[in-house]
């Protein structure tokens, strides 16, 4: 093992991408194609009284106009909360919600047509902040009628083990701190885009920028009332997702509907502003985090009360609600543990899943509070954390099964590399270090839509030409899952990567994969892929063994040869393939992954279950300008336990990208609203760090070799973001003695805290 696996490997589509040849959705054109123009709501919350589409319909070049009533069936990525329709039906719930759509001969005609739609509204009371949504209101003011309370609470998730409140009350040291987090969004560089084609046999082809072709496939079937077997969803090259392309989206349904109505190919590409309005980003959050410890610095109890702002619709919100709490069960051992999360609806673009789903904000809170406790106890924050870690092969209080666990090595690594012991607490005023740890799932063990199918199936095909084609529904969104499929096949069969090709993310050709979310792809698809190619190897070994009369167990695969160690058998790959083809020709083998049965028997026990967990530690070095309050992050050290780095180049890339995204959330990014209108739906004022704002990064991969992951691999796409934010927060404390409890930590807030004088 280890010819391909574990080696830094350029992405298989890298050359396509550096030459501009890679085809993203908007790059495709179909003959006779028409374009979509969307008419959006100017109101945050209003009843639709009437819609006049006649002028738009009569406008030159307009081929069709549709409104909410044309696609009235509700959907939601989670089958438990189908609260959304492709376009608003009776009322609008946020500024920017789609009310009507047109298909036009040109993008300009479509835009003009959409502008000509006239809608009259009757405004309803707006609920912009969570506070407003937590107050009783009348039934007809409620954002959604289906909520079973007289407020706008979408979901309450809570769990409690061993009376945490009492645990905190009886602890020697306790801290209970309020935190507030602005909403942030994925801001992938490729805007959402979809092309829908209605074929002569009444089947629908949808080429779209999605992380979840399978869920889109199901949703289109439901809302358009077309049989599943008549829908083909294809994901071409995709320009970043981070969770922002992991829901089925209205524009995908609208383009499809218009394709059917006009009987012409339809393209819908959103503007950057529309991408911001589509959002589904991280929930704005408010929480009180309470943790207690004993005099020796042992954590005794944790309890937290969280409100997350879901915006107008459900999306992944029920899962987010649980993740906010349950993922606090690691990497520290906490026996008395509890949380309550309330997800509220507000009249804003909806929140959803974003890198580090649900666990990023509470991670900030808990790591800052632990830092405070370490100071209260008089311990070094690294030592404090070190003595509280969960061990390997254990269970958390909520029965999450912990297997491989490299957290100790992670922390020791960043501690050593950053010179922590010589520098923490000793740097000059304005200059500081901070530490934090993180913990995340490596794939959700439970599928969103309950069924008895595997979570993924991979087909591997061997053909007479000696090529292997891997068929997988997995969605490469830039993270490199296609490359992983090729690596695994090359590794198992001892052939060069150039012999392996992929056919991916196409619901007609590829077996179901649930999608690229919850950091599940490497673990699940990797295992399935390995199983499929192993079967191919066994088939070849069987055929060759038979024909050449050598025991099949003795047959080896390496360097494009099929041989035995004793030299009796020594075939080229092509010769072996030729033998394997005899009497049957090309064949396909299948591999699959189903996670083991996990978890407790209590209600809510399914949340956060994963076949493995990743761990990480992070140290940040910052400087704070006392005049402006501006925070500069100058250097960071990250160590992440991904089990085994199948492709170190990609793992490092995921860690570095996570650092960048975490940095943005902690110092500069926020979704700002003015009476429910997004104020900064552009790249000038939604401030993502650019090259000069991004610190020097020292990245270490820690390999704990998970027993169940493919070659020992776990995840690296999301886990590394968690400790980034609190480490920076804690470094600010070391630098200037203030505790920042509101994100983003903009200079004005720093200055306000500095004025109050370092407290705590």
């Amino acid at each position, binding site marked *: 093992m280890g010819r391909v696996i574990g080696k830094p490997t350029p992405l298989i589509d890298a050359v396509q991408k550096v030459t*501009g040849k890679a085809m993203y959705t908007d790059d495709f054109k179909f003959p006779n194609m028409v374009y979509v123009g969307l008419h959006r709501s100017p109101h945050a919350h209003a009843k639709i009284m009437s819609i006049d589409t006649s002028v738009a319909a009569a406008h030159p070049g307009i081929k069709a106009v549709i409104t909410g009533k044309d696609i009235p069936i509700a959907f939601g990525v989670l089958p438990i909360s189908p609260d959304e329709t492709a376009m608003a039906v009776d009322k609008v719930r946020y500024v920017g919600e789609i009310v009507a759509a047109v298909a036009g001969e040109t993008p300009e005609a479509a835009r003009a047509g959409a502008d000509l739609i006239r809608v009259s509204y009757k405004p309803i009371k707006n609920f912009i902040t969570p506070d407003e949504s937590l107050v009783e209101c009348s039934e007809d003011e409620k954002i959604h009628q289906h909520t079973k309370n007289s407020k706008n609470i979408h979901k309450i998730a809570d769990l409690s083990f061993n009376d945490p409140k009492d645990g905190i009350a009886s602890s020697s040291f306790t801290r209970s701190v309020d935190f507030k987090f602005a909403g942030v969004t994925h801001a992938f560089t490729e805007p959402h885009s979809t092309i829908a084609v209605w074929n002569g046999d009444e089947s629908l082809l949808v080429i779209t920028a999605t992380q979840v072709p399978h869920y889109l496939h199901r949703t289109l079937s439901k809302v358009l009332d077309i049989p599943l077997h008549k829908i083909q969803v294809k994901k071409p090259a995709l320009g970043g997702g981070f969770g922002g392309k992991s829901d089925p989206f209205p524009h995908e349904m609208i383009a499809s509907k218009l394709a059917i109505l006009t009987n012409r190919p339809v393209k819908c590409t959103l503007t950057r502003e529309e991408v911001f309005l589509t959002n589904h980003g991280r929930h704005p959050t408010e929480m009180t985090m309470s943790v207690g410890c004993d005099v020796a610095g042992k954590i005794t109890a944790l309890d937290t009360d969280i409100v997350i702002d879901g915006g107008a619709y459900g999306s992944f919100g029920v899962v987010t609600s649980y993740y906010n709490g349950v993922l606090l069960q690691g990497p520290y051992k906490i026996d008395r543990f509890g949380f309550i999360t309330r997800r509220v609806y507000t009249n804003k673009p909806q929140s959803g899943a974003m890198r580090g789903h649900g666990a990023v904000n509470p991670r900030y809170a808990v790591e800052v509070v632990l830092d405070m406790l370490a100071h209260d106890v008089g311990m070094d924050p690294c030592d404090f954390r070190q003595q509280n870690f969960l061990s390997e092969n254990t269970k958390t209080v909520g029965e999450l099964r912990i297997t491989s666990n490299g957290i100790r090595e992670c922390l020791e690594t960043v501690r050593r590399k950053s010179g922590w012991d010589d520098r923490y607490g000793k740097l000059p005023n304005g200059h500081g270090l901070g530490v934090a740890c993180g913990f995340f799932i490596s794939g959700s063990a439970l599928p969103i839509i309950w069924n008895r199918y595997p979570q993924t199936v991979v087909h591997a095909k061997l053909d007479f030409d000696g090529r292997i084609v891997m068929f997988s529904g997995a969605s490469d969104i830039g993270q490199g899952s296609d490359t992983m499929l090729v690596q695994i096949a090359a590794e198992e069969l001892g052939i060069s990567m150039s012999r392996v090709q992929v056919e991916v993310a196409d619901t007609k050709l590829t077996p179901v994969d649930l999608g690229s979310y919850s950091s599940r792809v490497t673990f699940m698809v990797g295992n399935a892929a390995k199983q499929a190619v192993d079967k191919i190897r066994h088939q070849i070994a069987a055929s060759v063994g038979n024909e050449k009369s050598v025991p099949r167990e003795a047959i080896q695969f390496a360097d494009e040869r099929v041989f035995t160690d004793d030299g009796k058998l020594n075939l080229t790959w092509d010769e072996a393939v030729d033998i394997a083809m005899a009497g049957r020709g090309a064949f396909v083998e299948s591999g699959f992954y189903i996670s083991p049965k996990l978890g407790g028997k209590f209600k809510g026990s399914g949340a956060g279950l994963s076949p493995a967990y990743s761990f990480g530690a992070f140290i940040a070095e910052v400087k704070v300008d006392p005049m402006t309050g501006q925070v500069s992050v100058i250097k960071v050290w990250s160590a992440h336990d991904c089990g085994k780095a199948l492709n170190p180049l990609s793992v490092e890339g995921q860690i570095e990208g996570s650092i960048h995204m975490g940095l943005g959330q902690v110092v500069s990014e926020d979704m700002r609203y003015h009476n429910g209108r997004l104020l900064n739906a552009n790249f000038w004022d939604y401030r993502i760090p650019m090259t000069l704002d991004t610190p020097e990064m020292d990245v270490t991969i820690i390999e704990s070799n998970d027993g169940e992951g493919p070659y020992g691999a776990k995840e690296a796409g999301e886990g590394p973001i968690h400790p980034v934010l609190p480490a920076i927060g804690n470094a600010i404390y070391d630098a200037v003695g203030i505790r920042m409890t509101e994100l983003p930590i903009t200079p004005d807030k720093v200055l306000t805290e500095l004025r109050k004088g370092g407290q705590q």
Partner: protein
Amino acid sequence: MQKVKLHINGFTRTLLVNAHETLLDTLRERLNLTGTKRGCDQGSCGSCTVLLDGTPVLSCITPTIRCDGRKILTIEGIGVNGHLHPVQERLASDGGLQCGFCTPGVVMTAVPFLQENPDATDDDIKEALSGNLCRCTGYKKIIEAVRHAAEDLRHG
């Protein structure tokens, strides 16, 4: 409408454009040169960068009408005789891209930059790419790749 002659990637095209059509629209929608990407269409992400008479410009805020008689080089025209330019080669081999959507813009910014600054330091490279938004890589491997490309170019 006005007639313009564009010398794109060594080939001359003549088309009619109105005063507001942007070069990005011309390239992508009319000439099918879709390698140039539209990330924001507002001059704030760098993904649409192309060279106009050798100078990088943001094609989303460049009216095509201004390009009459001028030389345009897009990502499709970078690299010679089927060989990648060292910047492309290094971005590909050194992990300088993930989703790849920002990549054409990075290439079109870095190539002329290295031509003018063959001895660029990491800080110079960071400065030069400070208008190229990348949401995937955290920039580290992009900067390294461009530095390596500079070394490759120097050592021929």
